[in-house]
């Protein structure tokens, strides 16, 4: 049928396929969007602005070792627990320098401040201490010069006075500030700032003359310029005489301080806790025995105000726990604290500082002429340990566990001990006799020299 001419019909909509409905322009536009998104998402990850990663120090052979012994009349015992052949060691005092051939160990009579130094392979693990037994047993560690020292339990008046000796072994003058926290808070005095020690010289400071204090205090020696060896000699008025004892440096502030090898016959024991921080906290005293750590009965948590030092007597229950021997006193603070333990052993004053942590091999000179016991305690994880006694062929092997104290009897004839282990630990040796007691901490053996990684600044453009 043909459509009649002139008839008007609506135009039929043209059917468009879906593909034709999309114009080429829309396709290009969509493609451009897709290309933009995909190319941008494919952009490579940016390079770091600069290599800011920390570079650990490297170890090199120790070329020289110098330790400073505090002034005393007792002889200096020098030990090389890693030495397998004799090596010369220079012992310098006010009288002059003496070269001693040390084959494992040697005892050198000397007075006053003594500097023990050696170079080359002999410098490895050099240990020295002043140990003596007259009139009462005493022991004082010889230490390398450093930039900071902490002493807890110093006295500055009345029956308890302390003398600080600063020794500068270097060829440039050194300057230090003394910071003191007493039972009443931080002590400020112009006298305590800018204490200068000339090169190769020493300086003795009577604390009482600078800042008279009736109670125990904590002292921080912070070296502003150069390096110094610091030591404290404590003098206590006994029943009929004044008795002196070296006060070892305590570990820097931490929330856990450990005083190993507490004498079993300790009397009049007090624990001195210092809080140099700005936050008030609490400290709790524990006793780490051979099998576990115990909280003594009656020993409540001790409030430690910010910037103050607290002295607390140990309760009978605590002393009872300590009396078994081979124990360690643990001070746990809610804030970083420093701590030391002071008391009498057979009438002889003794002050035990919290011991420094050794991350692997450690050692100490052993007091002689008395019964001795080495007490070790792992700080983090358990691990095997071997103790070699210099001066004998004996060796002890065992295992250290955190939270416990491991006591090792020191054989007769041993002059120094070397602790071989891979675990972090603290330790000390105690010696006791009829006339009193002596104590020395175990320290990390210095067998190499740490050198910082030095490189040009990767961002020379920054200010």
């Amino acid at each position, binding site marked *: 049928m043909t459509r009649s001419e002139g008839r008007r019909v609506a135009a039929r909509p043209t059917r468009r396929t879906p593909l034709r409905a999309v114009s080429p*322009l*829309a396709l*290009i*536009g*969509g493609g*451009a*969007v897709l*290309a*933009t*998104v*995909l*190319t*941008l*998402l*494919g*952009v*490579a*990850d*940016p*390079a*770091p*602005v*600069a*290599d800011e990663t*920390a*570079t*650990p*120090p490297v170890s*090199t052979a120790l070329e020289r070792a110098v330790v400073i012994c505090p002034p005393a009349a007792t002889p200096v015992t020098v030990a090389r627990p890693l030495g397998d052949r004799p090596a010369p060691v220079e012992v310098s005092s006010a009288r002059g320098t003496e070269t001693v051939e040390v084959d494992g160990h040697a005892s050198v009579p000397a007075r006053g401040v003594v500097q023990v130094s050696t170079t080359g392979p002999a410098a490895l693990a050099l240990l020295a201490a002043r140990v003596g037994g007259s009139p009462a047993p005493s022991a004082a560690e010889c230490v390398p*010069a*450093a*930039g*900071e020292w902490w002493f807890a339990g110093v006295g500055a008046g009345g029956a308890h006075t302390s003398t600080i000796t600063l020794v500068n072994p*270097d*060829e*440039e003058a*050194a300057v230090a500030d003394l910071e003191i926290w007493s039972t009443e808070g931080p002590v400020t005095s112009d006298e305590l700032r800018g204490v200068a020690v000339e090169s190769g010289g020493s300086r003795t400071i009577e604390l009482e003359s600078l800042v008279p204090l009736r109670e125990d205090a904590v002292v921080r020696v*912070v*070296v*502003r*310029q*150069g*390096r110094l060896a610091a030591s404290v000699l404590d003098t206590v008025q006994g029943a009929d005489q004044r008795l002196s004892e070296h006060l070892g440096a305590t570990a820097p502030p931490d929330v856990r301080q450990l005083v190993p090898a507490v004498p079993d016959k300790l009397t009049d024991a007090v624990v001195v806790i210092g809080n140099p921080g700005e936050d008030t906290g609490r400290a709790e005293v524990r006793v780490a025995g051979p099998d576990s750590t115990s909280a003594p009965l009656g020993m409540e948590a001790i409030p430690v105000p910010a910037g103050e030092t607290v002295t607390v007597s140990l309760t009978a229950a605590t002393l009872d726990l300590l009396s078994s021997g081979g124990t360690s006193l643990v001070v746990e603070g809610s804030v970083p604290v420093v701590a030391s333990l002071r008391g009498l052993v057979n009438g002889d004053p003794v002050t035990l500082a919290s011991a420094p942590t050794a991350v692997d091999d450690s050692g100490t000179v052993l007091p002689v002429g008395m019964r001795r016991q080495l007490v070790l305690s792992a700080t983090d994880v358990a691990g095997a340990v071997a103790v070699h006694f210099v001066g004998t062929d004996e060796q002890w092997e065992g295992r250290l566990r955190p939270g416990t104290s491991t006591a090792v009897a020191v054989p007769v004839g041993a002059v120094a001990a070397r602790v071989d282990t891979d675990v972090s630990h603290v330790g000390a040796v105690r010696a006791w006799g009829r006339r009193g007691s002596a104590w020395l901490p175990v320290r990390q053996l210095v067998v190499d020299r*740490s*050198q*910082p*990684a*030095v*490189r*040009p*600044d*990767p*961002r*020379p*453009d*920054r*200010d």
Partner: protein
Amino acid sequence: MTVTALLVSHDGARWLPAVLSGLRDQQQPAARVVAVDTGSADASTEMLVEALGLDQVRQHRGSFPSAVAHVLPEIDTEWVWLLHDDVSPAPGALAELLRVAEERGADVVGPKIREWPSLRRLLEVGVTVSATAHRETGLERGEYDQGQHDSVREVLAVNTAGMLVRRTVLETLGLDEEFPVIGTDLDFGWRAARAGLRTVVAPDAVVFHAEAARSGQRDLGARPHRVEREAQMLVVLANSTGWRARWRWLRLLIGGLLRALGLLLARDPRAAADEIAALGAVHGRPGRLRRARARRRDLGPTPDGLLAPWWLPARHGLDFVSDVVSAALTQRRETVDRRRPTPGPDAADEDLDDDSGLLVRLVTSPWALGTALLLVVFWWGARDAIGPVAGGALAQAPDGVGRWWQLLGEGWHQLGQGTDAPAPAYLLPLAVLGTVLFGSATAAVSALMLLAVPLAGWGAWRFARHLATAFQGGLSARWPAAWAALTYASLPLLSGAWGQGRFGVVVSTALLPWLATSALGLLSPSGDRRWRAGWRSGVILALVTAFTPGAWLVAVLIVGTALLGVALVARRSLATPSVWGPLVAVVGVPPVLLLPGALGMLRHDLGGLLLDAGLRMPAPDGVDMLVGRFPGPAAPAWLGVLLLVAAVLALVPQRSRVAVTACWLLAAVNGGFALLVSRIRIELPSGEVGAGLSFSVLMVQAALVTSVLLALLTLTREPAARTREPAARTREPAVLVGAAAGLAAAVVPVVGLVWWLGADDLLDDPTPSLVPAYMAQAATEDPARGVLVVRGAHDTGLQWVVRRGDGPRLGEAEILSLTAPDAELTADVRALFTAPTPELLDTLPQHGIEHVVLPAPADPEVVAGLDAISGLTRASTSDRETPAWRLPSDAPRDAVSGDGPALLPWLIGLQVVALLVVLVLCGPTRRETR
């Protein structure tokens, strides 16, 4: 009063019929009309003979003065009326001249001269001359005669065309043949005045002058402009007396040279050559000048008030400069002249604007108020940038702009251990800006941070209005343009570029819309305009490249694509240089303008060409680029996503789809560029860095904003315009989608600005120098007295750098990052902290080091180690936590001296010349009216 009309003719057949007719129609005819033909090659003589009779026509080959002199002896009337063959007198001209001559007792009378053939424009109503030897008529160019100059007054001179002069005066003074045609009248008038005679202009006497000689219709044997300049200089120097003569001689010489330079800068080399040639002809022939002066020796001084006032040349110069600047700023006006531009669509508004004061316009315009409010809000939010500012990528500005000029000019920088690394290219514009701001580098940086965002908004507004003109005839485009301007201007704020001190991005954001607007000129149908657009775009691209070096490569990519497109679509058009040439100019100009830095980088470290300006900052990753953020404090990513979505939706409206697709293609090109460039790792001496992608981030975001703008322009067209298109009527859903896109996009700048006002940024007051002041001072005065600054700790490693002043300042950072550490010094510094020896303390000063500083907090272990070194003594510091030491011996003064590239001065010279040439090339054309 008898008059002889003396008509001098030379190839004037074109005008003679009218001239002779004018003479015949005089209400008061001349007693006699004599004509002199000076050797016409056309039908002039025949016409004269036919009109005047053979006995009244003379033949005399020579100049106008000699022709007059030739006929003068046979004239016996009281007055002579001089006429040119291109001058047609009005019927009452002679009568009026005679009336005024009688009334004023004048010796010389001139008519009002109007342009022929327009008959209405004024040419002269008496003339004088300025001290710069310019003929001054006192009229505006093209001024219509409305009787505004119709007062009879005494003048220095009147044109010889229509001049009525006493015969005796003409016989006595004569016309100087030194001035064959041009300058004759000025010289004659001046001499008449010096002789105590009066020259008066009679405006009611009108003659119409075709100015055949000046307009080049009469062969003068030389270029009219050159002849005119020579004649006018000679007039001034011949007629000046006493000290003024010597002063004007010197002034014309120096002024002429400067004027020639100015003409060169205004792209008029022929006029400049004329000026130089005229100078040579006058100043180079002292004998001629001496003779001319000798002939005038007996004349008296010039009466006061006849010469042009002293300030007139300065006024003309000022007018010209303002015209050039105005034309340069208003790119639509490509030509400099003093006429008003053709009124555009907004002419009514502009007229209203011109009639109102600025304040009135400001307070009555909601747009102006809105803009002012936004500016105040921005500057309040950006108040940190007022005064010294640093942070992020922005280093502290140096004390003065002189440091930047020094870095640009010296080939060897005494930074670190000394380096010949090139100064960053952005220092040149910064130094110029700082110099303008009274030498303050701090002010330059502040101006940059405070003005870049408004400038970006302004540029985006102008660009949007240009697009609006193309898309909808410019009507009702204000809202979309305002959105685009606001959104674009907020890009540096939202992306974090501003707050992170990425000043390169900030400046490029400000310049990009101006570059885009300029590049629109490349589409102009006029080849000349395309060339100018090319040069102009090249200059702006050079600036953008100086701040974001990736811009040039992107431009090369785009231009390459464009040329390829042209080659595929219209290959024939490539035969026209003005099609491809401007495009090549766009990408060719930046390397030339940035020559010292570019070549320096080529021979130093090629990768440096791809680094963004400023201190090293983290580069954006792909997602960052998509949403327009830089790593660091930046606006929430969803704002960027919103803009992205709006730009995708912008593809929906059909009418703008082509343009929006082009924008997306541009974004895709940048995406591709970023994809490739991000894989480039540049091994700088200071470490490996990625190539700068900042410009691509900016380009992608600019493309997104433009896409949305184009869609908005389509949607906001006049309803009538829309409904005319059948396609538009059937696309209402597209309008709805577009409206949704517009709404989404509108959120971006508003929310973004609110966010920015409360956001943190990296900008702050500059931190005090790590180096103690006295050490920095010593190192500034003598760079050899450097300071070894060691950061870090024993357990984490030590990092050292040598400072020779307060610390790295803006512009120095890039140089330092391109400088490799000195190997010997590296070994010596390592030894200082690991195994110091006494010899080491003697070696370190040889490297130009005098002090060692450990900035707080210094590691006590490291401090103790240095303290233990014998010979290294503590130096005083104001901060106890920042220990310092002094080395035992002084550093030699030449410790960090060195030689820079020998080519540098030549490159700088080339750069300056190229800059001048390109600026001239992209400047507006100077219309020749002669």
